């Protein structure tokens, strides 16, 4: 991990509030692994407001051109700042951060379920799984049209995917978990990797737990340092004695065993 400055190669608008920021960085392209993230300074040089860096999963890595990207939704001050960045400007970020996801070597078939912006880390994971010859089914669910044009990125990674939208404006109407429920026999010996809103993770946990399916969750929490030094970004993880302990999303995660995450 390093503090880096990378030239912005492109900032592509996918929809009203979804952007893909492409950044030149040989260091990240060489060192970053799936599920890792970077911590972006979202204020001008010399300004400290907004103060904290913002964490973003690494979305794509183009090793040929040494360009990686992050895909982000505009939510507040930091992401608005990012949306306003222009080609040629410099991005100040720290990375790669977090533990690379540990792919269970013995499993060969994977189901990836992404909810909303949760699809981001799954894309790099999917690409990686494919490259090592695993079978991957990708399910993505969205609330609204923000991701309408995003399919063009997904289709480059794999063909076996299904996109759902709650209101049916694009893809199939519904949510991925319902589809999985209804067609569970197809997936029962797959390894699941899920990323998305807490409610989705919670439902996935309870559904998969009953069926004794193994699953990895990619988690989020508010961060300060992003490198494991401040104890700010903890979530509750079950431990052996039926209790829990706090684990750091930034340095113990962001990938955790879904069954060990406490949602309460």
């Amino acid at each position, binding site marked *: *991990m*390093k*503090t880096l400055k990378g030239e912005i190669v492109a900032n592509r608008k996918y929809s009203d509030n979804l952007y893909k920021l492409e950044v030149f960085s040989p260091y990240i392209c060489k060192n970053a692994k799936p599920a890792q993230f970077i911590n972006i*300074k979202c204020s001008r040089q010399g300004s*400290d*407001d*907004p*103060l*904290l*860096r913002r964490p973003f999963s690494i979305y794509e890595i183009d090793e040929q051109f040494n360009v990686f990207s992050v895909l982000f939704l505009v939510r507040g001050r930091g992401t608005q700042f990012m949306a306003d960045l222009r080609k040629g400007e410099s991005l100040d970020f*720290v990375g790669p951060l977090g533990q690379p996801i540990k792919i269970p070597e013995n499993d060969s078939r994977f189901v990836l379920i992404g909810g909303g912006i949760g699809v981001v880390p799954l894309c790099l994971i999917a690409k990686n799984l494919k490259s090592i010859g695993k079978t991957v089914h990708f399910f993505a669910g969205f609330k609204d049209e923000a991701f309408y044009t995003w399919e063009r990125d997904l289709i480059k990674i794999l063909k076996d995917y299904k996109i759902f939208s709650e209101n049916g404006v694009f893809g199939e109407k519904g949510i991925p978990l319902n589809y999985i429920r209804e067609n569970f026999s197809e997936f029962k010996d797959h390894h699941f990797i899920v990323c998305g809103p807490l409610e989705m993770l919670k439902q996935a946990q309870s559904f998969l737990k009953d069926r004794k399916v193994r699953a990895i969750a990619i988690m989020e*929490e*508010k*961060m*300060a*340092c*992003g*490198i*494991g*030094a*401040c*104890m*700010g*970004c*903890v*979530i*509750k993880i079950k431990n052996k004695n039926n209790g829990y*302990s*706090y684990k750091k999303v930034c*340095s113990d995660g962001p990938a955790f065993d879904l069954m060990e995450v406490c949602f309460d």
Partner: protein
Amino acid sequence: MTDYFSDETGLEVRMGNIVLKNPVITCSGTFASGIEYSKFYDVSVLGAITTKSFSLERMAGNLPPRICETSSGMLNSIGLQNEGIDYFINEQLQEAKKLGVEIIPSIFGRDLDEFKKIAYKIKNIEEEIIAVELNLSCPNVAEGGIAFCASAEQVGNIVAATKEILHTGIIVKLSGHYNNISETASAAKKYGADAAAVINTIPATAFDIETCKPKLGNITGGLSGPAIKPVALLKVFELAKENIIPIIGIGGIMTWQDAIEFIIAGASAVGVGTANFIYPECGRDILQGIKQYMRRKNIGDIKMLKGIAISNIIKG
């Protein structure tokens, strides 16, 4: 241009029995035990690092969310999550020592008795540390913490008890929250503290207007970062004016300019906290900036800079 600073000449800081090779240290809770940051730069350039506060037993810490950003600042309500002093002594210290930087363990007890017990444990590693910091000002714990600072007597008692056990330097970490900081600092000095670290985070809170709930799991937290710098500076300045005890100035230091501001206001050394989160190499950069400033201003010894704003005011 005079070449005072090819090395570290003129940067040494003495605070009571504590001697630092330079005035830049990192603050408790913002630098863990240095290992994470050593991936960013050679932390041995620092005057010292202060560890996360360790308690007698492992502490789980507070409910998340624990972090919330505010205007030019942040709230934290970590609640002193740590693995306990034994873990530090047995597991972490040796690894930290390898970084080649002086180490100041910060310790936290819920009461006098716990402080004593921790001090006895520290006694075994006294040779390996440069000082111990007594955290008497954490705003995020139910027992002890900031409440100690309400009473100069309490502060005095804890310092006295620690002093009886330990020979290493003693730093008291004080809060700006109460209005008796001269008294607590005087009590600390009287009973043997070498320096006061001023200030800890300021009690504060934030609410989410959509959920109408607090933004922190613990409801309240401590404010740090640039937002608090003017408040911290005043505390340092007022204490320094009275010349009670050497001061480690802390609060919102992001740049070498901020560090200089604390030093001219009367701080002997400076503690860098929240800034590490945003600029992982800031400790090194701040030190570098101080050196360059001194060279530019032709100041051969940092002691000559200390409190210079106070003398300028007195001179009128």
